[in-house]
């Protein structure tokens, strides 16, 4: 049977296992939307802004590991998808964005709703395609999914001129059995010589640290990471993107590292003699001043992307390969090796970490419990959220103080449960991302922890949540200001709060939630917090927006001292440096 371009597209998406398309229709995409109407395999989720479509597809992808799909029209539809593409690109998320384009003969004529999507998106995609021949659509979709999901994953754009989906022009559905690209063959297996070298260094280490990032989640290698540390018993830290990949409850887990990482994690990194970096990229939020980074450490760096290795910190032993295959090779090599771990040195190293934890660790922030103030501390909101959800929820966040508080105080024990925009730092990500997660896991608890600043950047998606009955829980940590901006202004700009406050013009979030057909709750007193959260989570079938007013003066600590600081230089609390 011959099919139109739109029907070819939908069949190709179905064959890739696509269940949901997050999108927004418009002129150049209308033929495709007609094809969507005529089929049942893919559900279309109508968002209220294309940014929401990309973040929802991104959230779906992060939670499931399968590519999320967004569909937008040309011009403004395409440009509205740009922030979502950049967000996915920075965090290596396999996202497919299909954009309608004006008819081929109009391209380049400044026609209505025309924009050069391929050109605009070029620096923030792994690859992009423009459909020049309708019969290529199945092959392009197949290649796009292959490229998005293999090697270091990333977003792919497919731009389709309207005439290529003309319903009157029909073609055979044809695509190759498998993808073969002479210019793209990502490395899977690590070099055995490098694995041997790494093994020797690891086993003779006295102060080893495992520093694991989002690449371990993307490479589905959390079991291998845990297995490795069953052998090593070394202290482990996770990046913001890696949280959950090593269970937080494990005694060797030190918490997050970096800018707002724990004291013990940052101290351990600085004092380590061997750092085993796995699927992490030595981002500037981790290393602080690169020339002062871990002065005595040999660096073993496992990554599927060779360009991530020795980009910022020189790797002594680079290992290019898939994380899973590399860790397995390393585990086997360690089991085979005759070198014995210096258990005595390791024991005293673990004790040193325990002492650091005792001294300035987050659990010892006794003031959280001791404070007499009736104001709610934002950290306590996250702690209570953890209890209310038994630590089992899928948690999305936006960007700022609340994001760091979740990273610090919601102890993730499973990978993929923590969904946040770590690389690009996109406010407005949390709510649409939670929609994607909820659609993927409708029976599970999905929470969006946000702030009154971030939530207003994609608040329109509350309407989408009503249309598709997505009973997520929104915890709005409301400090009536752009908290992280204000923290920097307090610390570095003499407390001059330039354009970071708006307390007299905030919406009534309870009424706002209600006007969208949801339930709103407001909490201002400490004594009401726990009860309110319990009530919110007891309403299984409703979206509940919990607006929690917190102490506006609270800062996020620890915080690395910058500029010119190393990882051991931290603010532990207001006016106190470690």
């Amino acid at each position, binding site marked *: 049977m011959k099919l139109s371009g739109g029907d070819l597209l939908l069949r190709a998406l179905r064959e890739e296992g696509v269940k949901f398309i997050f999108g927004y229709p418009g002129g150049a995409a209308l033929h495709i939307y007609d094809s969507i109407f005529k089929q049942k395999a893919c559900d279309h989720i109508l968002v209220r802004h294309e940014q929401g479509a990309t973040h929802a597809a991104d959230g779906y992808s992060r939670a499931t590991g399968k590519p999320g799909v967004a569909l937008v029209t040309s011009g403004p539809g395409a440009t509205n998808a740009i922030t979502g593409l950049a967000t996915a690109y920075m965090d290596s998320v396999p996202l497919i964005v299909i954009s309608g384009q004006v008819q081929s003969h109009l391209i380049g004529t400044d026609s209505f709703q025309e924009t050069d999507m391929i050109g605009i998106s070029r620096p923030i995609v792994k690859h992009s395609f*423009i459909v020049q021949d309708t019969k290529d659509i199945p092959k392009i979709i197949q290649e796009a999914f292959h490229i998005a999901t293999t090697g270091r994953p990333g977003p792919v754009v497919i731009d389709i001129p309207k005439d290529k989906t003309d319903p009157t022009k029909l073609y055979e559905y044809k695509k190759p059995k498998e993808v073969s690209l002479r*210019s793209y063959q990502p490395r899977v297996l690590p070099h055995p010589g490098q694995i041997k070298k790494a093994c020797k260094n690891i086993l003779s280490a006295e102060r080893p640290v495992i520093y694991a990032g989002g690449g371990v989640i993307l490479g589905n290698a959390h079991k291998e990471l845990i297995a490795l540390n069953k052998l090593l018993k070394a202290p482990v830290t996770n990046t913001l993107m890696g949280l959950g990949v090593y269970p937080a409850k494990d005694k060797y887990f030190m918490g997050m590292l970096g800018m707002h990482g724990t004291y013990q994690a940052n101290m351990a990194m600085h004092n380590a003699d061997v750092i085993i970096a796995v699927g992490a990229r030595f981002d500037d939020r981790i290393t602080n001043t690169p020339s002062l980074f871990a002065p005595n450490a040999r660096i073993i760096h496992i990554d599927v992307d060779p*360009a991530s290795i020795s980009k910022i910190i020189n790797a002594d032993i680079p290992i290019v390969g898939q994380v899973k295959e590399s860790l397995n090779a390393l585990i086997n090599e360690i089991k085979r090796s005759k070198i014995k771990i210096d258990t005595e040195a390791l024991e005293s190293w673990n004790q040193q970490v325990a002492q650091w934890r005792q001294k300035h660790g987050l659990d010892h922030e006794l003031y959280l419990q001791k404070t007499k103030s009736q104001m709610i501390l934002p950290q306590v909101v996250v702690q209570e959220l953890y209890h209310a959800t038994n630590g089992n929820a899928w948690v999305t966040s936006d960007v700022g103080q609340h994001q760091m508080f979740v990273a610090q105080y919601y102890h993730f024990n499973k990978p993929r449960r923590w969904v946040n925009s770590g690389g690009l730092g996109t406010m407005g990500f949390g709510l649409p991302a939670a929609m994607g997660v909820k659609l993927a896991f409708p029976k599970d608890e999905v929470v969006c922890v946000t702030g009154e600043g971030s939530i207003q950047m994609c608040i329109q998606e509350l309407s989408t949540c009503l249309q598709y009955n997505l009973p997520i829980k929104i915890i709005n940590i409301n400090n009536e200001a752009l908290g992280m901006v204000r923290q920097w202004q307090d610390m570095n700009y003499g407390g001059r709060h330039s354009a970071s406050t708006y307390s007299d013009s905030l919406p009534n979030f309870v009424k706002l939630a209600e006007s969208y057909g949801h339930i709103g709750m407001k909490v201002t007193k400490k004594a009401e917090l726990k009860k309110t959260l319990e009530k919110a989570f007891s309403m299984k079938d409703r979206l509940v927006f919990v607006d929690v007013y917190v102490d506006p003066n609270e800062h996020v600590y620890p915080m690395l001292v910058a500029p010119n600081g190393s990882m051991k230089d931290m603010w532990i609390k207001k006016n106190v440096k470690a």
Partner: protein
Amino acid sequence: MKRIISILIENKPGALARVVGLFHQRGYNIETLNVGPVFDGSYSRMTVTTRGSENDVEQITKQINKIIDVIKVSDLTEGEHHEYEFILVKFIHNEKIQKILKKLNGKIHEKDKNAIVMSAWGTSSNIEIAIKAIGKANLLEIVRSGSIGLHEGEKVLKI
């Protein structure tokens, strides 16, 4: 230090822009750029010259390699290599310029009452010296092909 990077890239629309854009995105400069289809025409060979430390160039070649349309990348300056550049010059009759270009395999292509068009080729450093020596006086137009190069000996950059 000057670097010469050779790239084999799929001959597809937009592929060149991905490479050129990358230099800008990653904060590097392109000094010269040459590109054209080779063999069966399904792919092109690019030669880019840039300046940077060894680390810079390692990062550049790794990043170029990540571009999906790029088939192979090689830094010619890593080893011995051949490197030449071609120029065309239009100038008002002038003995000095003719002499300079003659030394660089110069050839006259057009000559009339007023002007001469000559070609010349040589290593980029000799071309640079010649361009400086020619100066501005009597010079009407000049165009450079950008460096092109190959590895010396048995080493071959090919699919």
